[in-house]
């Protein structure tokens, strides 16, 4: 039979171990709670990202529908009216009462307007972009802007071209358009290069200009919160890739989009 001291020792050890057990149990519960909380937060974040992506996709679809509608309107309505005006100008060309020089100039202007509208209509139309392919569509868009005389746009391509889904091509094309618009509106650039690099698993598109550049942090904090820049990033994310905008005042701007083929 154990003596009194042994009983005391056992009781002290048992008491200490029980207290210790409850302490460890409490800590384990806290760690488990933290684990569950993190998991919930991550799930919430993933759901929010998915919701944002769906929202963005819906917005893009609406935008594309609007673009297609405008394109059709230009082609079917404004284009037809201008063609009619051109024909009418041609019919009065022989009249002795009209100043031939002014008439000829007016006819040229109308013809140019028709050409420009046709190009614009094509650049807005979804079907045209997917029919051409992303590189060719970018080249055509570059030529359109170069013809306007504000920018000299060049397109380069490295590696063998791969097939990209229609949606991704469209998103990528809108990113390139956004970049070119930024160059015209804000950058004060004279040269822009659109570089396609076809890697085995992903495509890199780099739009580089020689404009005045900017501080991305300041722009993102500004009143407009760099909506255009955010659009570029969000659109790039929508393709499952990423968009990186790097710029410094006086050093031009480079927008790099990495997009997986799958």
């Amino acid at each position, binding site marked *: 039979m154990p003596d009194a001291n042994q009983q*005391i*020792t056992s009781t*002290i*050890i048992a008491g*200490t171990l029980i*207290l210790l057990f409850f302490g460890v149990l409490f800590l384990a519960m*806290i760690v488990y709670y933290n684990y569950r909380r*993190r998991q919930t*937060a991550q799930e919430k974040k993933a759901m929010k990202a998915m919701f944002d992506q769906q929202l963005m996709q819906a917005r893009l679809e609406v935008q594309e529908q609007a673009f297609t509608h405008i394109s059709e309107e230009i082609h079917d309505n404004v284009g037809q009216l201008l063609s009619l005006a051109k024909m009418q100008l041609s019919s009065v060309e022989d009249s002795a009462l009209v100043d031939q020089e002014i008439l000829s100039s007016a006819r040229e202007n109308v013809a140019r307007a028709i050409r420009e509208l046709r190009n614009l209509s094509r650049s807005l139309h979804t079907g045209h972009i997917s029919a051409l392919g992303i590189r060719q569509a970018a080249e055509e868009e570059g030529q359109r802007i170069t013809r306007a005389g504000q920018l000299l746009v060049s397109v380069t391509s490295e590696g063998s071209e791969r097939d990209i889904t229609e949606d991704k091509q469209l998103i990528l094309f809108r990113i390139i358009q956004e970049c070119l618009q930024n160059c015209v509106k804000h950058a004060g650039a004279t040269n822009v290069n659109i570089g396609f690099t076809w890697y085995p698993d992903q495509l890199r598109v780099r739009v580089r200009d020689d404009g005045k550049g900017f501080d991305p942090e300041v722009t993102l904090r500004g009143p407009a919160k760099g909506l255009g820049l955010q659009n570029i990033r969000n659109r790039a994310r929508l393709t499952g890739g990423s968009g990186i905008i790097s710029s410094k005042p006086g050093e031009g701007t480079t927008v790099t989009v990495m997009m997986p083929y799958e």
Partner: protein
Amino acid sequence: MIPILVLDLGTELIGTNWRIFHWKNNYLIYNLYLVLSTPLFLYLFSILLALTRQQKRYYFGAAILLEVLVLYNFFFQQGPSEFNTYSNLLIQGANIILSCLAIARLAIGGRDEEAIILQDPRFCLNAMILLFSLVTLILLGLQKYIVVHDIEIRHKVLYFAIMPIANAVLYTGYSCAFLLCRMQTSK
């Protein structure tokens, strides 16, 4: 944290080499440690608990009361030459409650919901203080009884058999907390 560590180190150095000073025992130095370390720990917990202004008022009221009781026990009740078990019970009890509250606050009230609590130095610190206090609550509370009745485990006084392990756990916790702090600041 640094003053607590300096105090710990000084106490352990003198407490281990008490014979050099020709004392009868080393209780005085450990009693002084209880008196001096209590305000430091209470201040540390006041930071860890991130109290509001009103909560701080109640907290410091309770802290002053606790320190007064420890001082009363040191000077008038058990005295400096006997180990202050009552003070120890009070302090370890307070440590258990406060470390549990601090851990709960870290787990529930943290802003960053994705933060891993095991990588938080405050969790490490509080967890080890909690475990140390749970072990020492009974062991140091019965310190005199253990010594007088010579209660042993495997021919070793129970106190000397368990306390080194508890101390090792506590200081490992401190070291981990410092390491995690360093990792976070270098990030």
